[in-house]
């Protein structure tokens, strides 16, 4: 779901930067103020792990593939602000070092995958606070992918309308297509994320309680994890 250069209308690109940058800057500020240096190696391994996981596309049928975004996993393990920072580092490296996602579109990619996906995750985990951990994890993962893709589709549709068809794709086509494909991809994200959380809850339950930024911002049902 990495948007390349030349696909979006310049106005939409600027709006992406204007929304994403303050959120990313505030997340970096919060993390730098509150992070314990002991948490940094965990954050590093998690981020690097998400980076390589994003290279492993899985088939979803119809000649399409998807890959883990990882925002939900990061949000569960590090909290909202930590996940924004981790996703930002990954997306910037993918763009600048590997050419995955355009430089002009980096603001939109940050908005979709480093801001909207963690917000969706935090919202679901907050709404399902105290409920079954794995159900919350799966639902958050699916919704994070679905909403990030829907945002991308809306950006393509706005680009099409603003440019008179020079950029983007017509909304009536792109919105249902992106939503349909990513509804499937989100299932893969949900299965992988829930599997990893289930594994960590068995082998390293303390890793599910490492919240950075604000201790109480995400609660995935700590009692179940501890048990």
């Amino acid at each position, binding site marked *: *779901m990495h948007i*390349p*250069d030349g696909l979006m209308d310049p106005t939409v690109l600027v709006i992406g930067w204007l929304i994403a940058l303050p959120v990313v800057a505030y997340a970096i500020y919060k993390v730098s103020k509150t992070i314990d*240096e002991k948490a940094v190696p965990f954050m590093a391994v998690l981020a*690097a*792990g998400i980076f390589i996981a994003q*290279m*492993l596309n899985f088939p979803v049928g119809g000649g399409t593939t998807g890959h883990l975004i990882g925002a939900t996993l990061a949000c569960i393990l590090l909290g909202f602000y930590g996940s924004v920072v981790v996703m930002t580092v990954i997306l910037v490296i993918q*763009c600048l070092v*590997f050419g995955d996602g355009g430089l002009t579109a980096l603001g939109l990619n940050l908005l979709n995958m480093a801001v909207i996906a963690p917000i969706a995750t935090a919202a679901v985990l907050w709404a399902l606070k105290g409920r079954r951990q794995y159900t919350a994890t799966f639902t958050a993962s699916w919704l994070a992918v679905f909403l990030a893709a829907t945002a991308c589709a809306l950006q393509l549709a706005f680009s099409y309308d603003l440019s008179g068809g020079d950029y983007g794709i017509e909304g009536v086509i792109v919105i249902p297509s992106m939503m349909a494909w990513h509804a499937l991809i989100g299932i893969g994200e949900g299965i992988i994320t829930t599997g990893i959380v289930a594994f960590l809850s068995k082998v390293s339950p303390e890793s599910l309680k490492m919240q950075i930024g604000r201790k109480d911002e995400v609660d995935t049902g700590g009692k179940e994890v501890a048990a």
Partner: protein
Amino acid sequence: MEKRYLKAIAALFVIFAIGLVGFYAYSAMYGDGLEKVMEENGVSEGEPVWTAPLDYGDGYGGSLLMGIIGFFVVMLVFVGLYLLVRSRKRAGHSQ
């Protein structure tokens, strides 16, 4: 770095090496959701504004190497963060 993180890194490399086999067997020839929608609508990528020094590689060996390089580039950024946090904490303690 603690032993458990070194074990986790080794485990991630093994999973990545195995996962890449599956990627090249089933997925490498297809695009992701956005690429599929672009293809269906005859939309192609524009010229990149920035030319990245690396890419994800075309074959198994190349992708494995690029994944490992990317892994360590990401780690390196967090080493920078670690040094920053540590120096700030030490400065805080000395005051």
